[in-house]
C-alpha cells in the first residue's frame, strides 16, 4: 500500500513539471505579448508610446529573455516564495488576486460535489436495480439531458427563469447592497438566493454523468455470479445490493473522483462567467483575453495542479478500496 502511494506520488512530480511548463508556454503562445496588448489599448485611448518606450517596457518586464529562462525565474519564485509574479493589468501581485477567488471556487465546487454524489449514487443504484421502471426512465432521460445541455446554457436558462418568472435578483454572489455590509441573516439569505443557480448548474452536469456511470457499473455488476452467490446466502435484496455490487461498482467510480473536481473547475469557469461570480473563471477569461500572462499562467498552473493532485488522490483511494489493485 505504502509502495503504491509512493510510486504514484513520484509519478505526479514529472507530470507537475510538464504541466507547469505547458501552462507557461500556453501564455507565451500568442504572437505579441502583454506590451502589445497594452500599447493597443493605449492607442485606442488616443495615447501613443515611442518604440524606445515600448522596448524599455519589455525589458522591464523581462520579456526579452529566453523562454526557458523566463520559465525558470517564474517557477523558482513560485516554489520558493509563493510569488506568482505581477499582474500587468491590475498592477498587483498575482497571488493577491488569485487566492480569494480560488477559495470561493473551491467552496462552490466542493458543495456541488457533495450534492452531486449525494444525488448520483443512490439514484444510480436505484435505477439499476429497477431497470425499465418509470424511475429508471426518468433518470435515464435526466442523464441524457444533463449531458447534452452545456453548463452555460443551463446557467442562462436558470437565470432567465429566476429573473423573469421568479422575480429574483440573479447574477453575482449577492445583491450589490450587501457587498460591503457585515454578515447578517439577511445577507446570508441573499447569498443563498444567488448561490443556488451555480450549485444547481454544477451539480446537474456532474450528477448526470455520474448517474450514468453508476447505473452502467451497477448493471454490469448486478449480472455477475457473485451477486447470485450473495442471494444464495440468504441476504435480503438491500443487503446484497449495498454490500456487494455497490462496493464493486464504486471502484471505477472512485477512480474518476480525481477528475470530478477539475471537471467542476472547468464547469465553474464558464458558469461563473455567465453568472458573473467572483470566482476564478471570469478573471481567467479576462487574463487570457488581455494576455496578462502571469495571471493567466498562475491560474492554469493552480487548476492543473489540483487536477494532478486529484488524480493522485483517486489512485490512492482506488488502491485502498479495491484489493485487486492493492494486492496486484
Amino acid at each position, binding site marked *: 500500500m505504502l509502495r503504491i502511494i509512493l510510486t504514484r506520488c513520484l509519478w505526479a512530480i514529472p507530470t507537475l513539471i510538464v504541466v507547469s511548463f505547458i501552462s507557461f508556454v500556453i501564455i507565451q*503562445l500568442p504572437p505579441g505579448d502583454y506590451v502589445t496588448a497594452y500599447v493597443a489599448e493605449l492607442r485606442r485611448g488616443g495615447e501613443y508610446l515611442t518604440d524606445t518606450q515600448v522596448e524599455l517596457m519589455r525589458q522591464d518586464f523581462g520579456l526579452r529573455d529566453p523562454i526557458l529562462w523566463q520559465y525558470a525565474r517564474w517557477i523558482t519564485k513560485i516554489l520558493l516564495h509563493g510569488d506568482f509574479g505581477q499582474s500587468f493589468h491590475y498592477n498587483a501581485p498575482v497571488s493577491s488576486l488569485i487566492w480569494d477567488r480560488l477559495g470561493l471556487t473551491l467552496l462552490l465546487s466542493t458543495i456541488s460535489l457533495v450534492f452531486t454524489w449525494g444525488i448520483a449514487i443512490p439514484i444510480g443504484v436505484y435505477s439499476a436495480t429497477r431497470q425499465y421502471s418509470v424511475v429508471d426512465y426518468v433518470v435515464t432521460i435526466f442523464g441524457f439531458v444533463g449531458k447534452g445541455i452545456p453548463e452555460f446554457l443551463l446557467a442562462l436558462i436558470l437565470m432567465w427563469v429566476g429573473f423573469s418568472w421568479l422575480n429574483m435578483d440573479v447574477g453575482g454572489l449577492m445583491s450589490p447592497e450587501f457587498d460591503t455590509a457585515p454578515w447578517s441573516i439577511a445577507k446570508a439569505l441573499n447569498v443563498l438566493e444567488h448561490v443556488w443557480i451555480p450549485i444547481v448548474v454544477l451539480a446537474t452536469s456532474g450528477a448526470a454523468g455520474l448517474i450514468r456511470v453508476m447505473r452502467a457499473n451497477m448493471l454490469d455488476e448486478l449480472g455477475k455470479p457473485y451477486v447470485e452467490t450473495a442471494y444464495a446466502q440468504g441476504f435480503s435484496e438491500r443487503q446484497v445490493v449495498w454490500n456487494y455490487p455497490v462496493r464493486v461498482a464504486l471502484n471505477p467510480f472512485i477512480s474518476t473522483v480525481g477528475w470530478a473536481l477539475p471537471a467542476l473547475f472547468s464547469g465553474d469557469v464558464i458558469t461563473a462567467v455567465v453568472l458573473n461570480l467572483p470566482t476564478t473563471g471570469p478573471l481567467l477569461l479576462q487574463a487570457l483575453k488581455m494576455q496578462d500572462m502571469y495571471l493567466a499562467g498562475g491560474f492554469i498552473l493552480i487548476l492543473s495542479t489540483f487536477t494532478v493532485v486529484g*488524480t493522485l488522490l483517486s489512485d490512492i483511494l482506488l488502491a485502498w478500496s479495491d484489493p485487486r489493485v492493492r494486492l496486484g
Partner: protein
Amino acid sequence: MTDTSRAESHFTASARTLMWRRFRKHRLAVVSLVFLVACYLAALFAPFLAPYPPDKIEKLQTFVPPQMVHIWDGGPAWPFVYELKRTRNAETARVTYEQTDKKIPVQFFVRGAEWSVFGLGTSDLHLFGIEAKKQKLNLLGTDSLGQDVFSRLLYGARVTLSAGLVGVAFAFVLGLTMGAISGYYGGRVDTAIQRLMEFIRSVPTIPLWMGLAAALPIEWDPLFVYVLITLILALISWTSLARVVRGRFLSLKSEDYVLAARLSGASQTRIITRHMLPAMTSYIIAAMTLAVPEMILGETALSFLGLGLRPPVVSWGVLLQDAQNLRSVALAPWLLTPGLAVVLVVLAFNFLGDGLRDAADPYGQ
C-alpha cells in the same frame, strides 16, 4: 482468390446486415439518425432554406418576436402570417409589436438575396418568404440588430455542425494512430503513450482550451481560426478515441484469426490493415459518433466566451453570445433557440452513438 474474397464479402455483408438489424431496434437512435441527417441537409442548403442572409440588418425590426405561420383560418388555408404593427412605448422607449388583422400570405420559391451555389454559380431562389414592405418573415424572431434568427441559425449550423465533424476527423487520425500503435506494439511504446494520454487527461480541459484559443490572434482569417479551433478541440479529445482503439487492439490481438494470420506469415502492416482494422470499424464509428457532441459543445462554449469564432462568422456559440445579456434574454427569450438547437443535436448524437455501440457489440451491456 476470387472465391475467398467473395466468401469474405458475403461474410462482412451479413455481419453488417446483422448490425443494421440490431441498430434498427433502437428507436431513439433511428429517430436521431433521421434528425441529424435532416440537420446536416438543412445546413448544406442553408442559403436556399433561409429566407434572408445571416447578416442582413434591419434597424426598424429589432427584437421582433417569432411569427406563427397559420394554416387554419376557420378552415384549411394557404399559409399566412398576420401583419405586425410597430409601436414605441413612450415611457420605457421600448419597441413592441402588435398583431393586426391583416394577413400576409407566405410565398414559396421566392426571389431574394443572391447566394453562391457551391461555387458553381449564383441563385436568388429561396424556399419561402413574404411580400411585405415593412415586415419580414421571422420564424424565430429577430435579434437586437433586426437580423433574422432563423436564417442565422441555419447558417450557424454550417459552422457548428461541420466543426464537430472536422474536429472528430482530426481526433480520429490522432487517436487511431496512437491507439493502434499503443495497442499493437504494447510494452514501452504502450506505456509511453499511456502516460501521454494520462497527462493530457489530467489537464483541466476548459482552461486549456481557453488558453490555446486565446492564443489565436484576432486578426487572422476566420476560416483559419475555425480550422485551428477544431484542431485545438481535437488535440484534447483524441485520447478517449485512442483508448477505445487500444482496448480493441489488445483484445483482438489475442484472438485466433490474428494468430492464424501471423502463423501464416502475414506482415505486421498487413495484419493491422487487413484483419484488425476492419474488425474494429464499428466500434470506432460508435466512439466517433459519441465524440462529435463533445466537439460541438466545445466550439459552442469557446465561441460563447468570445475565445473561439468571432462575428461576422456565424456559429451557434457566436449566436448565443447575444444571449449573454440577461436583459436581452428577458426581453427576447427566442435568442436562446440556438441553445435549444445545440441541446437537440448533442442529444441526437449521443443517442445515435449509443445505438451504434450496442449494435456493434451484440454481447455488450
